[in-house]
């Protein structure tokens, strides 16, 4: 479609990058939510009474009505496997020798995406009760990784 032609000596591609280095604040709700994990080993939810939804992780606002949420509650560290997967690829698209067992654990009307541990993939089922395993208190930094994984709980 063009009148111009490509120079046969043209370099095929120009290599470069889009460099991004980011620092994310935990935010109004995240600050409190992650501090509770770090300092208390507790998982907090927040309830919008108008919409009747208990958000876990706790949030500053209700996405359904945009009202501010003031009512925070400890939802415990036990939930159930709502769905799970066995992931065979890493972030570069390479095949993982050891697949990762990842679940969405239901807590309140929300939950947490996290790894499962102390369990074989074949033993996991939707609905299975699990509990959060925390890092030792002194090693926690206020991150979602302060929870090492969820493991089967006896109920």
């Amino acid at each position, binding site marked *: *479609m*063009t009148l111009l032609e*490509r120079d046969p000596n043209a370099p*095929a*591609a120009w290599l*470069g*990058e*889009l460099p*991004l280095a*980011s620092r*994310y604040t*935990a*935010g109004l709700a*995240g600050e409190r939510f*992650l501090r509770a994990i770090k300092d208390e080993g507790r998982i907090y939810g927040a309830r919008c009474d108008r919409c009747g*939804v208990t*958000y*876990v*992780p706790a949030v500053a606002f209700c*996405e359904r009505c945009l009202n501010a949420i003031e009512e925070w509650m400890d939802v415990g560290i036990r939930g159930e496997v*709502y*769905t*799970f*997967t*066995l*992931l*065979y*690829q*890493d*972030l*570069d*698209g390479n*095949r993982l020798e050891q*697949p*990762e067992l*990842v*679940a*969405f654990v239901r807590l309140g*009307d*929300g*939950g*947490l*995406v*996290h*790894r499962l541990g102390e369990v074989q*993939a074949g033993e996991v089922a*939707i609905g299975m009760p699990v509990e959060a395993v925390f890092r030792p208190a002194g090693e926690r930094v206020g*991150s*979602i*990784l302060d929870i090492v994984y969820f493991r089967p709980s006896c109920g």
Partner: protein
Amino acid sequence: MNERVAIVGVGWAGFRPTTPELSYKELMYEAAVRAYAEAGVDPRRDVQSFVTVAEDLHEGTSIFDEYTPDQLGAALKPMHTIGGDGLHGLATAYMLIRTGQFEVVAVEGHSKASNILSLERVTAYAQDPLLNRPLGLNTHFVAGLEMNRYLYESGAEREQCAAVVVKNRRNALRNPLASFPGDLTVEEVLASPPLAWPLGQLEAARPVDGAVVMVLAGEGAARSLSDRPVWVLGVGWCNDSAALEYRDWAQAVYARQAARMAYRQAGLRDPQAQVDFAEVDDTYAYKELQALEALGLCPAGQAGELTAAGATVPDGDLPVNVSGGSLGIGHLLDATGLARALEAVLQLRGQAGPRQLEDVQVGLVQSWRGAPTSSGAVIVLGN
């Protein structure tokens, strides 16, 4: 105000795993020249507004909209970019024309996926930076979680998802724009290595390069520009919860809501009976089943069985992804919805060659923004 809007020209370029001979601008140009020639318009004179759909991190350029105008003939004209799928772009053109301020609008979408060396890392940067990204997981995990819950709630089976792959890649055999045609069996698909169990490697669409341009016009202009305008009967788009933690894992709520909006405009009360064919999201095989249910094209929980029984093959009751879909054509990133709409336009005009469906009047097109999002768009097209 223009009540009715039609697609009066379509053009494409690429549709291959790599397109090393063309820069992204030249790929866009090739698609645009085809579309303008087909519509019989000079973009400098006749096209009054332009829309591109693009995401910065797919381009490797911040505020990528900078680089959109020249190759589309849009310099010094009203042009803007939508951070969305090609169907969001079509919906935008539809709105622009309906205001009455514009008669002719062009929409462009493209993929240079082959130029993104770290596509999986880029995609992972769409995960929540505090809650999800620290886990360091390839974003396919979202599809694995979704598929597992979808199978659990709907009763669909892995074999039925594999049947989607078999169908779409067979359909691709009759589409020269498809990069991944194939004649596979359900057993072969099921035997492919797992990607995010229960999701298998062959159940995930692979990215390709390509560009699509469409020219839309209000009713008056459409009738003078085209003998076969394809009418936009309805558009809809929707976001479910942004957070993985609060969304519906089993159902494509965004597709259901978007379809309701589009059906209302199109006056479709019984889409199952009124839609002749559909081009829907099959980024992952299970998504096609999930979409058919969300779109009301089959009763909840029955998409799998119907697919396995052949209801969605080209000569079935409701042909789905006759083009080959993303599994057969390849996934065109932000241009994916436009690629599906392209098939619908060709089918409605009777220009789909060896895969032409008989007597089709209404086509449905639906698209998803991809993992980890829960958003998408729907457009209903008709003769």
